[in-house]
């Protein structure tokens, strides 16, 4: 299926990209309008507390549509739900999607080194872990496109959630009953905040409780010298980008970020040296 949709964006639905256990894994592709291509792919990861959600969810499809209109090839990937599939099955599935995107870079019209990952809520946590664990053999899985790198060039983290011990909800659903402290630590993006972590942009509302771990993550990335942005919208709740105006705002900021760090890497000049002696 290849139809011209709104904004000149072309959609291809339900391409099989791999296998997670006995489950066939599928993804959707949105291609940018002719002439706007930035040769950069963004793999989108839905949220839903690990137990629900799909690549068709509205916050995801609207973001993917907006970024496609701005020139990015958007890939919306499935992954297995908990509790049927436990950690790190979700990471295995998503890394298979990244590998498929890289293996199919020519088909998608992107450069193989220009693949970013975007995730929402629980998907934000999964995206951050994928971003921070390139080359870690135990997290690759065998879902398909073996031998291809799962590294990403940037991460877009929308109100990323966390897994923590003692949570009776999503965390207990995704973690095995006998999970160790080390297993829990392996789910925390903070564990991977070190030099070499890809450039990352984090969005959160200040009325969303994940503001605390996400601000800590941002500060750790800055400490590690990782290019990182933090955008905290006053008074906004979880999944605030569904409200009018906010999705456009986050898409504008993502485009500015991806464009200068991935699509067209460039450095902005400092404030003129002549004036740098001036007191601020």
């Amino acid at each position, binding site marked *: 299926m290849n139809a011209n949709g709104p904004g000149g964006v072309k959609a291809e639905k339900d391409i099989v990209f791999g296998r997670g256990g006995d489950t066939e894994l599928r993804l959707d592709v949105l291609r940018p309008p002719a002439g706007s291509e930035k040769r950069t792919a963004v793999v989108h990861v839905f949220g*839903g*507390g690990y*137990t*629900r959600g799909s690549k068709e969810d509205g916050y995801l499809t609207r973001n993917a549509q907006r970024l496609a209109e701005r020139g990015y090839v958007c890939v919306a990937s499935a992954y297995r739900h908990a509790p049927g599939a436990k950690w790190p099955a979700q990471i295995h599935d998503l890394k298979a999607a990244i590998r498929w995107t890289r293996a199919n870079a020519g088909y998608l019209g992107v450069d193989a080194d220009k693949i970013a990952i975007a995730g929402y809520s629980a998907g934000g946590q999964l995206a951050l872990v994928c971003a921070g664990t390139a080359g870690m053999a135990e997290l690759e899985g065998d879902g398909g496109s073996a031998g291809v790198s799962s590294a990403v060039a940037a991460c877009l983290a929308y109100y990323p959630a966390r897994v923590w011990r003692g949570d009776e909800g999503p965390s207990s659903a995704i973690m095995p009953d006998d999970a160790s402290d080390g297993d829990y630590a392996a789910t925390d993006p903070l564990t991977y905040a070190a030099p070499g972590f890809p*450039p990352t*942009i984090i969005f959160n*509302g*200040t*009325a*969303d409780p994940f503001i605390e771990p996400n601000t800590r993550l*941002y500060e750790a990335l*800055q400490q590690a010298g990782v*290019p*990182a*942005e*933090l*955008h*905290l*919208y*006053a*008074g*906004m*709740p*979880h*999944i*605030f980008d569904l*409200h009018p*105006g*906010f999705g*456009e*705002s986050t898409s*504008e*900021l993502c485009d*500015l*970020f991806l464009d*200068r*760090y991935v699509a067209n890497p460039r*450095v*902005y*000049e*400092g*404030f003129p040296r002549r004036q*740098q002696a*001036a*007191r*601020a």
Partner: protein
Amino acid sequence: MSATPGSVSIESDVVFGSAGDLELKGDIYHPPAALNKRTAVIHVYGGGFERGNRVQAGDAAHKFAERGYPSLTVWHRLTHEGKWPAPVHDVKTAIRWARANAGRLAIDATKIAVSGYSSGGQLALIVAGSANLSELEGDGGNAGRGTEVAACVAYYVGGPVSRLSNGEDHPVMPPGSSDEAYRAADAITYVRPGFPPTALLHSTTDHLAPFELSLGFFHALRDAGAKAELHLFEGLSHIFDRYPEFGSACADLCDLFLDRNVVDPRDYPPHTPSRPGRARRA
């Protein structure tokens, strides 16, 4: 005053008050009438209190006006024209003038925000936190009007004034200023519950004004229970909004912020995840 329908019109050299023998002047950027959000923004330039002029805030004022905000770039006195708190007096004079001239600006007199740049950001935060504080009001005009603001925006806020490394006073401070006088010139002193909603924008590679100033101020406002917003951009220097794409992005963020906190104040409900079973039955 020149005006074409649908575009921003600029009214230059409007006298909004006085400081001794000096006339204080500003430029008004009027939005297209059909876009007017009836919320004024007073723009405060930077330059470390020693240099600079209101033209520096013109691009930002224009961008705010394009988005519907009547904008006023205001002169405040520099070191050689008046010592602290002269610049605070002047910005407050501009706020009183805007309130007294709500009809001329086509605004609601309760909807006046302040936006400052670099050291002007420090001034804007002080003004936002010190509404109607008699010793900071001055006598520049429109006495008796309130100086409360409905919101504050600070771009790459500059640090508070401090003594020089050799122990001498900062040039803008009166000679022999006490520690207390320096504290009174630091916006953090005015953080309290009820501080107006405030948005802080900064770049993390700003070597002139470290982004930790905005991050710290954000945390202080949150700890006090005030409403705060923070945007930390990566890889850009001081005054990064001079790049048009970032100037537009910042103005868009400020528009979203002012629209929901001042123009049409509203709260957003917490997100409540739908339970899969219930959602399917629906």
